């Protein structure tokens, strides 16, 4: 194998699994260390700089970081990264004064359509540069999907208002709320230097052709619309018996909200097998905890009416068959259709993009999926060069943190576009790599990982939370639980940096490594090399760190897979060929250094 080029920041970036998996690449271990030091405000600021809505995301994020967490490969459970983020938000001091303000006007004017997480991120990144930003939304308040679709028992409105306020209070941002933008052509004539579309993926998918759909319309609701109606208090109750169709997180929000609005017999009925449902495992657990059964492998067949009123639904039973190419087919079992009685049905089977307000003559072209054709997933520029897309409106439904990541990149593009720079030349990330040695047995971070198991977040009393949908179910960690949970972090950003020329091949690192990551051996092609390490490196998603050829003709090979970043290799190295160096990787934003954390 070729020697690893550790001077390329992308190599060590990939080693920090959580940060790498995060669409916005939030420096997770850095802020977790700050939480352990009770520097909650600094932890919050690092988050805010990267993901804009730490308080919101600390409660609602889809957490791509947690399945990626190295701890999950070393023991049972990953670090509770998401809930630690909430700790930073819960325990921080007043931060308003530490956040940046709008810069002196630079004469450029930008329209942001839709006030969801993507547009708000663009606004925050561009305001300090002096852009005049006009933020349009059909709702009365900003937040978009975060406000309309996420129930209050998961995300209190006060948290959302606070974090949106931080952005709107920067200055330079004019809100045009209660205004539905119905023509892109008109917007293009208003003299904006650039337009960002972050209007989300607003249409919930329906089952228009299912027998009985039209006749039973009064008791059939589209999940995300229904959730929005609940949020705005247009809907305050639901029937006693509710069927929720769908297996995603929206279905989980629907069924749990139903339990709070009078639903007593609430069921989730889903086509796919339980294990393959799109909902996050913890969302499913929470629903089951609230007494909601999840019935899988059932395909809707018919809405059943009696005297013109919905009384239930029939379903065909299926079983999954997996073909060689990995394709899954749901094959009818041939059993009799099954009937489930109900008063109301919530359809939460996905969302579709829709841009009825973007005229053909604007030159903005769309794919056959209904999503805009975008230059690439770095620039977010549409086929009309001054129009940019981001969030769910760019590539279809995803999640908040993805929308934020889009917003950062789009903001860079918009800035470059307005300043006449080349969009494809993306700015490099801000990277530092600093030695952490403090003494013979001492590092600047808690190097030896603790063995405590993942802390469980305490919940509000079930009766109390089912009685009032405004009561937040999760109570969050207290300071002590947060400290232990933070100490579970393996500090994967404390990188093991190897300098070939210093190595005298004493093998001390290989002997001491508690997880047998390091092997000195003859070089070979990657597949062969992986097989002949002390413990074969089966996890091919994780890289091998390979040195140049050493004096005895061998190479040092480190399997990154289960490295604990405990620093023992560096402690037992007589020549400092190994060193633990703290790696900080911050993706480029339109405004660099938004916050000041030492």
């Amino acid at each position, binding site marked *: 194998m070729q020697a690893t080029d550790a001077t390329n920041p992308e190599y060590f970036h990939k080693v920090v699994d959580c940060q790498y998996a995060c669409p916005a690449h939030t420096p997770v271990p850095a802020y977790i260390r700050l939480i352990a030091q009770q520097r909650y405000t600094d932890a919050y600021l690092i988050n805010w700089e990267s993901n804009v809505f730490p308080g919101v995301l600390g409660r609602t994020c889809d957490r791509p970081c947690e399945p990626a967490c190295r701890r999950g490969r070393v023991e049972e459970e990953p670090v509770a990264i998401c809930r630690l983020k909430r700790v930073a938000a819960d325990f921080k001091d007043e931060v308003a004064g530490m956040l940046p303000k709008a810069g002196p006007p630079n004469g450029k004017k930008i329209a942001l359509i839709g006030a969801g997480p993507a547009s708000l991120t663009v606004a925050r990144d561009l305001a300090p540069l002096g852009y005049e930003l006009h933020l349009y939304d059909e709702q009365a308040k900003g937040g978009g999907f975060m406000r309309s679709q996420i129930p209050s028992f998961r995300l209190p409105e006060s948290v959302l208002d606070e974090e949106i306020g931080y952005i709107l209070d920067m200055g330079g941002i004019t809100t045009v709320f209660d205004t539905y933008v119905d023509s892109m052509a008109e917007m293009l004539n208003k003299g904006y230097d650039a337009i960002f579309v972050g209007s989300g993926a607003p249409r919930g998918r329906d089952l228009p052709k299912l027998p009985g759909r039209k006749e039973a319309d009064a008791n059939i609701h589209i999940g995300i619309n229904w959730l929005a109606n609940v949020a705005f208090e247009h809907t305050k109750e639901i029937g006693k018996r509710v069927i929720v169709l769908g297996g995603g997180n929206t279905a989980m929000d629907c069924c749990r909200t139903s339990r709070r609005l009078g639903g007593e017999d609430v069921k989730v009925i889903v086509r796919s097998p339980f294990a393959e449902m799109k909902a996050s495992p913890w969302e499913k657990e929470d629903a089951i905890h609230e007494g909601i059964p999840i019935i899988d492998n059932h395909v809707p067949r018919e809405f059943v009416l009696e005297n013109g009123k919905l009384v239930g639904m029939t379903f065909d039973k299926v079983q999954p068959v997996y073909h060689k190419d990995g394709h899954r087919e749901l094959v009818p079992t041939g059993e009799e259709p099954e009937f489930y009685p109900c008063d109301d049905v919530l359809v939460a089977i996905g969302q579709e993009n829709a841009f009825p307000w973007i005229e053909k003559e604007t030159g903005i072209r769309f794919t056959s999926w209904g999503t805009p054709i975008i230059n690439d997933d770095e620039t977010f520029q549409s086929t009309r060069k001054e129009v940019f897309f981001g969030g769910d409106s760019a590539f279809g439904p995803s999640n908040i943190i993805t929308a934020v990541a889009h917003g950062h990149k789009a903001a860079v593009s918009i800035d470059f576009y307005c300043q006449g720079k080349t969009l494809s030349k993306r700015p490099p990330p801000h990277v530092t790599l600093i030695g952490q040695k403090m003494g013979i047995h001492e590092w600047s971070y808690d190097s030896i990982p603790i063995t405590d198991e993942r802390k469980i977040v305490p919940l509000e009393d079930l009766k109390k939370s089912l009685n009032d949908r405004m009561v937040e179910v999760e109570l969050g960690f207290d300071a002590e639980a947060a400290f232990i949970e933070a100490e579970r972090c393996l500090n994967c950003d404390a990188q093991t940096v190897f300098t070939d020329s210093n190595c005298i091949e*004493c093998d*001390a690192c290989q*002997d*001491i490594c508690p*997880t*047998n990551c390091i092997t000195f051996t003859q070089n070979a092609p990657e597949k062969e090399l992986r097989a002949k390490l002390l413990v074969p490196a089966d996890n091919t998603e994780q890289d091998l760190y390979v040195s140049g050829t050493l004096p005895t003709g061998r190479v040092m090979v480190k399997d990154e897979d289960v490295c604990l970043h405990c620093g023992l290799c560096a402690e037992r190295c007589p020549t400092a060929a190994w060193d633990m160096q703290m790696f900080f990787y911050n993706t480029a934003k339109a405004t660099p250094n938004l916050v000041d954390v030492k």
Partner: protein
Amino acid sequence: MSYYKPKFQHPKLPKNELGYTVADYDGAVSTLCAGCGHDSISAAIRNACFLSAIPPHRIAKLSGIGCSSKMPTYFLGRSHGFNSVHGRMPSVATGASVANRDLIYLGVSGDGDTASIGMGQFVHLIRRNVNMTYIVANNGCYGLTKGQDSATADLGSVGKYGTKNPFDGIDLASLAVLQGASFVGRSFSGDKEQLEPLIRAAMAHRGFAFIDVVSPCVTFANNVGSTKSYAATRENLDAMPIDFVPMREEIRTQYKEGSSQTVTLHDGSIIHLLKARKDYKADSREDALMALQKANSTGKVLTGLLYLDPNSQDLNQVLELASKPLNSLGMDELCPGSRVLKSINEGLR
């Protein structure tokens, strides 16, 4: 602060026949200098015991005084141990072996502990063929007292402070062959591929097995001019690789005909001597001595299995001692009564 190892292990760490992982053979984290050759020997012992699937509680570690003699703390944390007086480990080992012949004895000593203060005891240990493995971590200097030349320092080797050693060093391997040791090997701490099978073979051998291991002192003798530095040892290394196949394992590796010699131990285990010299016989003292002298005269460090007598009789056999450990003998066996005493007395009249 990391004076102990994290508890986490690789989830796919292999297990031996006893169901133990190599981590079950770990000891405390070493307090020797980072990069010390001794730590590599500790790891080689750990790996050897793991590979040979020896139950840790069947092993007794014995040592004297010195950096080398601290080593037993750093491997086999679940075995018995006795840290004795300087140079007096052989007496303790002899006593222990006679008292309980069922334990596997592993002595760890250094060039000072063996070749200076302990020399008198060492040669008698060999002479009596006590059933044990005796490893000398040989760095040619007194690391614990800041690196003075030891009795095994080579003539002309330069110390850390720039002075040349004016005396000829004692070659412990030659001495052991000459004194009649039934198993003599030499190795290098930086060559685990050879050291591990050598330790496994030594532990399987019945009788006194001696291994002299060149183990660089990274702090006081790793300088230019030192003959026992990592660089100098590697440069002058003349290694005879070996492979060890325990009795219960089937032989998987095929060696080209003529490329290796095999030696079968008393328990049926097999030692393969790879790339063996055509005219070298591992069961000949004369060949061993000749090869060692030749290597010494050309400044080479000859490593590998130097001499082996697979049919040696250990101390317990020679003295026809009880076949069971003393602590397992019952009252009737220890004190057979006046009738037996009478018959003995009768026999002497």
